[in-house]
């Protein structure tokens, strides 16, 4: 009897212990997978950065520390020109895309009209359509209408594939917009114009800014579309580094890649700082 009692009373304790063990085992599995995943994401990046300081001309044997490749990179006029081109195209296309995307977001969120479903679909398509298809279609289009490829075609293409991203970001922000704030402004004597500039736009700004950062990053990173629509002598940075990445002739490309990485990280930090500042209001 005593045995029975002790056995039955210890049973629940066993179950509890078992489930606790299972929970901590589950946690261990989650931690391991997460750690492995982050390693998978970051090890290649760190290795690349480390090897951009390697003296060896080829291969992955470490022969000593050097900044020679960075010096070479900054002396490479073609590369610098391509980087400047990228910045130029990125800046201008972002500015245009921000305006176009914001206007589209306002129209699509605030108005109801015939054919809205069509525009809904069209403005969503660039997110879905593979870049390679968008690229070749623009190549065909420019060739067919006899437009010589160069800076204008590059710009037109970049605006076209970044505008929808600005539009989607701003529209998401608009969907959460508390319209009573605009009514309050009108109630206090502000006409539509003043209401837009003093109330609507400032409150929309976080969406516009993150849309702009997204557009700029997409433009700076784009290789496939740019490769099809750029003209002779109009290399962007990704287009310029592509053949060298494929052949991997010189560690100089590791240095260039590291610079691109740092630039991307700068953009992330910038976007986070801006978001922090916005959320304080």
């Amino acid at each position, binding site marked *: 009897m005593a045995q029975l009692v002790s056995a039955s009373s210890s049973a629940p304790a066993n179950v509890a212990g078992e489930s606790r063990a299972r929970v901590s085992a589950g946690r261990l599995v989650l931690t391991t997978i997460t750690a492995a995943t982050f390693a998978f994401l970051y090890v290649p990046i760190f290795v690349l950065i480390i090897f951009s300081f390697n003296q060896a001309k080829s291969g992955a044997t470490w022969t000593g520390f050097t900044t020679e490749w960075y010096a070479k990179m900054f002396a490479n006029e073609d590369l610098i020109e391509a980087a400047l081109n990228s910045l130029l195209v990125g800046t201008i296309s972002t500015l245009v895309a921000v305006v176009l995307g914001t206007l589209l977001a306002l129209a699509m969120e605030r108005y109801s009209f015939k054919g809205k479903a069509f525009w809904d679909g069209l403005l969503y398509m660039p997110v879905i359509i593979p870049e390679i298809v968008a690229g070749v279609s623009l190549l065909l289009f420019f060739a067919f209408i006899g437009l010589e490829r160069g800076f204008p075609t590059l710009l037109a293409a970049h605006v076209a594939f970044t505008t929808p991203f600005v539009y989607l970001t701003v529209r998401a922000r608009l969907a959460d917009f*508390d319209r*009573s*704030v605009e*009514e*309050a*402004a*009108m*109630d*206090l*004597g*502000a*006409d539509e114009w*003043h*209401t837009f500039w*003093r*109330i609507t736009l*400032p*409150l929309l700004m976080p969406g516009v800014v993150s849309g702009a950062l997204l557009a700029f990053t997409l433009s700076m990173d784009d290789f496939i579309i740019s490769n099809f629509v750029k003209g002779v002598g109009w290399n962007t940075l990704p287009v310029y580094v592509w053949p060298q990445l494929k052949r991997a002739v010189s560690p100089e490309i590791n240095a260039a890649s590291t610079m691109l990485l740092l630039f991307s990280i700068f953009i992330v930090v910038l976007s986070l700082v801006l978001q922090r500042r916005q959320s*304080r*209001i």
Partner: protein
Amino acid sequence: MKSDFAIELVDVVKRFGTVAAVDHVSMQIRPREFFALLGPSGCGKTTCLRMIAGFEQPSSGQLLLQGKPLGDIPAFKRNVNTVFQSYALFPHMTVAQNVAFGLEMKGVGRDEIRRRVADALDLVRLPQMADRYPKQMSGGQQQRVALARALVNKPEVLLLDEPLGALDYKLRKEMQIELKQMQQQLGITFIFVTHDQEEALTMSDRICVMSTGHALQVGTPLEIYERPNCKFVADFIGETNFLPGVVTEISGEYATVNVADMSLVGRLGEGVTLGASAWLSVRPEKMQLVDEARANPSALNTNSVTIDSVAYVGSDTRVVVHLGGQRLDVWDENNISTLDPNFYFRAGERASLSFPADNALVLVK
């Protein structure tokens, strides 16, 4: 032409699609009046307010501001300001910037803006909060900023859309008194939308009770409570017992209703006709319960009842009684202090229930 009314609604209809949110409503709101639009949600009270503010255009009918038709004058040209339910403070501006906004839009000079903003913040007792952002303030403080932002413009009419709805009970009570004082001090017409009848009764000079797009009754709190003109108003404001019956006699201001073979007399309500079925409405605190031994059973509106349940709630005792198959709520004021548990009636006992004819109303069924 100076009108006798601050705001006038003349046969106003507002349709959203096929639904009439406001259905042929007419009312007149006097200058310096604290006027409440009271009704359950969806009754059209907020739509009325939004039409006065200029956020909605009436489908038909007319709105007049001091005798002048408002027509399609846009919201930003109306000298009417609104305190929004959600406050609608500009989150990207400080308190002072929020309050200054309306004056800036009017092109008021910088010094005057500064002075008037300071005055307005004094008025709502938030002078030290000028540089805060709305997010950094409590709900009650935000509410005061919304009030200051509207009042600083010296509007002819201030519209308040359930301004106290988001506040907790105690704060709401304080703000009710403060708003009322402010309104009397400033002498501005307040139009106040609420679904809280107690709030409306406490604060208003007059109340308009609305239901499903109709304005049912306009009157002082006393009139609305003591002389509701229909079952909805009687039911919505306070607690009431309704006894169904048939009108057997009308004499002067009184009508007799036959309720389950009892003849009960009450004040004659609007539109009640002889022979028609009607409601006898009597509020729980307007009836008396006495020992059967001490009652005169032949007196007017006096009947024997069975006590169903008794609940002591401090200020009064809430009793449910059976009268001819009807359950009635009776609230008996506890005006004698005692610890004797046998002092009062107990469930199952019999008692005599009576009320004067003036305490009951006969309303159209």
